[in-house]
């Protein structure tokens, strides 16, 4: 029998953590100490997560109670969220009171991010489906149950209300998601457990 390190190495392209996150060996994670994966999250190969872009100074905004707790976190990804190959997750920055500060990027649960997306949003809600090649600009807020169509360019600072379908360049609201959105396993925006299980 071969020694243990040798047998475990060719096992798969994914590393599975204690909380069930499946992270591809060929993903490019930077500043890993600032990245929080919520558990059972899938990160596919060639995904780039810029955790090193963290807010340097302590939070100056007293109105946001959560900002204190997340001062040293740059990317937070929720449970059963799936990040497809080639995507870039990058915390947004903005010019605020004369200085540039990076803001944490929060992604909710059961969210699907398609291939080659560039995400610089401030927050993305639960059960969101982002089609491949979409670009979410800086400080975009996407609420729950949203579908972003393929190749959409969501302009910087946009707030996408919940239950919307957005698409186009620049992205506009083009419709609403149906009643069953987020309810069915394996559907867009639906439960992602099966997809997580099928990986690695």
């Amino acid at each position, binding site marked *: 029998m071969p020694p243990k390190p040798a047998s475990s190495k060719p096992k798969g392209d994914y590393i599975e953590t204690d909380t069930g996150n499946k992270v591809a060996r060929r993903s490019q994670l930077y500043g890993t100490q600032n990245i929080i994966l919520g558990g059972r999250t899938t990160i596919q190969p060639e995904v*780039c997560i810029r955790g090193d872009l963290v807010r340097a100074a302590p939070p100056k905004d007293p109105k946001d109670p959560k900002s204190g707790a997340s001062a040293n976190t740059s990317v937070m990804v929720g449970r059963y969220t799936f990040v497809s190959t080639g995507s870039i997750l990058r915390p947004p920055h903005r010019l605020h009171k004369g200085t540039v500060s990076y803001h944490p990027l929060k992604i909710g649960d059961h969210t699907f991010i398609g291939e080659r997306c*560039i995400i610089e949003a401030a927050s993305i809600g639960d059960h969101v489906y982002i089609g491949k090649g979409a670009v979410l600009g800086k400080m975009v807020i996407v609420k729950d149950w949203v579908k972003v169509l393929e190749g959409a360019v969501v302009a910087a600072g946009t707030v996408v209300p919940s239950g919307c379908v957005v698409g186009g360049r620049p992205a506009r609201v083009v419709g609403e998601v149906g009643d069953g959105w987020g309810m069915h396993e394996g559907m867009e925006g639906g439960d992602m457990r099966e997809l997580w299980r099928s990986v690695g």
Partner: protein
Amino acid sequence: MTARPSVTSRISTSRSLGPHIQSDSTTLISASTAFTGTQPISLGPNVIIQLRARMTSAYGPINISENCLISERASIGLLSPPAPTQAEGEPTGVNLAPGVVIESGATVEATCIGAYTIIEAGAKVGKGAAIGEHCKVCAMVQLGEGAVVGDGMVVYGSGWGERRSEQGRQELEGMRRKAVTEQIEVLRRCWTGK
């Protein structure tokens, strides 16, 4: 992974590997940047090149002025031979004026890009293009070969893009300059702790 010779040991060898890179002591280059080609690449002071950017000088030199910011996975330099019709005295290769920001995944083959212009994520600028000062090429816009964009324009939308001129340009110029220098400062502090 096999041990690669360090940068210093590579310089000491007589065989030239890759392009000749001229840079300043204040230039920050990520270790994962890919420099390819044979023609010279010059990087000005305070230039920051982020992770996995590609600099290709196979078909023309690259000249990046001070205070430029190149984001991850951006590709700078001509990817195919330049048009044979080009006159002698014309600038060749890729020239970036001071304060140009190239965002993630953008491909830049333009001959010249004016000062404080922003090329947003995933945009493509074809070879021979000339872009003016204080412009913005929005995300995923593809500007074709030889495209000319005047000063202070915003190019957005799909394909070749719609254009509109920036409103209130006078105030914006100062803002852009401040935003770029601050961004470079913050990144430098992030990376070097200084």
